[in-house]
């Protein structure tokens, strides 16, 4: 069973809620190795999108995701704006005109989104960024599908890998973004962007858990 357009809308609504709930947590993480605004940034961005959602909730999945990307680049601010903006924009380009997503559709969209983040931010695995949660999540999802896991199971694997990747950023020394100005002192703290990425992917797994 594929993920339907309305399931995508539900996912994004969940993202907004989760990012609002975790606003202070993300801010705290960003206080340790940044400028303490990641929580506010993500909350503001998704709230701005929630205001737009009614006007696109009946469109195709690509349009919804592109709108999200365009909204985020204009409202999130900081490093995350262009990066998350690109992420969702590229997902939207890949899913243009679709009203449902097969597991392959989701893998391709996620891959396109991550490629966009990497192209813009030039982060590599181990640089202590959102990429350290996103890439393992993508790989885990693709592997689960190769192993004939159900869509729902594969999404779970994806969320678990995102969580692992997020935690794996703790010992890393940041090589991108504000945290990199701290050098060695950035080690020992979980990366805020990897955390928000995890939350977003977890929200997908939780929202779509019912699909087989």
């Amino acid at each position, binding site marked *: 069973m594929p993920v339907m357009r309305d399931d995508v809308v539900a996912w994004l609504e969940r993202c907004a809620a989760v990012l609002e709930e975790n606003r202070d947590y993300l801010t705290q993480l960003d206080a340790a190795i940044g400028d303490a605004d990641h929580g506010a940034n993500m909350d503001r961005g998704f709230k701005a999108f929630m205001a737009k959602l009614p*006007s696109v909730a009946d469109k195709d999945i690509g349009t919804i995701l592109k709108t999200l990307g*365009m909204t985020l*680049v204009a409202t999130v601010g900081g*490093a995350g*704006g262009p990066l998350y*903006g690109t992420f969702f*924009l590229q997902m939207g380009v890949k899913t243009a005109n679709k009203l449902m997503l097969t597991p392959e559709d989701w893998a391709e969209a996620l891959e396109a989104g991550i490629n966009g983040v990497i*192209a813009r931010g030039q982060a590599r695995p181990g640089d202590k960024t959102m990429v350290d949660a996103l890439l393992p999540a993508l790989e885990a999802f693709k592997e689960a599908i190769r192993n004939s896991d159900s869509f729902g199971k594969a999404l779970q694997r994806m969320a678990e890998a995102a969580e692992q990747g997020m935690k794996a950023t703790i010992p890393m020394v940041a090589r991108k973004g504000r945290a990199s100005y701290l050098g060695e002192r950035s080690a020992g703290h979980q990366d805020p962007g990897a955390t928000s990425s995890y939350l977003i992917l977890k929200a997908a797994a939780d929202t779509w858990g019912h699909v087989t």
Partner: protein
Amino acid sequence: VERRELNPALDPLVAAPWARCAPRMNPQAPPALPCLDEGTLERVRLTLFDLIATARPLMEDLHQFTEGSGLAIALFDPAACVLDVLGDAGIVRAAEAVGLRPGVYWSEGHVGTNAFALALLERTPVQVVGAEHFVALYHDWVTTAAPIYGLDGQPLGAIGVMAPVERAQPDTLGMVMAAARAIENQLQAAENLQESHQYLAELQAILEAIDQVVMVLNTRGEIVRLNRTAARVLGLDPSGILGRPLSSHIQLPPALQNALMDPQVHLETEAALLIDGAPLEGWLTLHAVAEGRHHLGCVLTFRRSEQIHRMVARL
């Protein structure tokens, strides 16, 4: 300026637009503010996503370092359509009320003389102060803008600032000029990086596709690049050997050792390599690597006699 009369002391850069506007517009009337519908604006912003994503962080920084001083900062497309606005809340609201909103066109024909249209038209940073704006509504404002050019010299858009006329300053002009330059340079850097990555990807794929020993040496005879075949045939550990001199593992015949450093080297010959003393016979080539007129090193290829025999056997 009163009654549509031009002040003769007016900046010539501003006088010409006035001459253009005067026949067509009533300076006392509120300007026609042509505005794109939501959908079309979204499509325009989608097409210009890269510009928006690049400009936005810089606009946020411009705001951060002038915060509270009364600026609205805006990004325009090449037709002077507003793409994005940010800045001090009160000023942004007031500017929005007079048309500084995403989707609105600030073309001279609709809004009268203003820095945003003028910068794009004259292809130069420009500031328009108070009564220099043709339309009376903008006499309380100062607009400042600089055009942004793309990699082929085509206009990508403009970055501009709007502020209350009391706040008119010369350094705003320097600021938008430098901001446009920063955006252009960042776009150029990203393009160059992408090109760099593509060449490297081709380079690496070619190396792996070739079933001969292929190595690239720099002018100091150190190994800069080698393919899998080279590592295997010559018994080298890729992670260990990069940056080390070829001679630390492999002895070339003396005549060839000199040839390594020749900026014009272009030779092919039978040769025996000594690998930790043991000879390996085959066919060796050396070709200089030059970046324009700059000698970077050379490419060494080698095919074992044995391998050649095997290739024949395969056919």
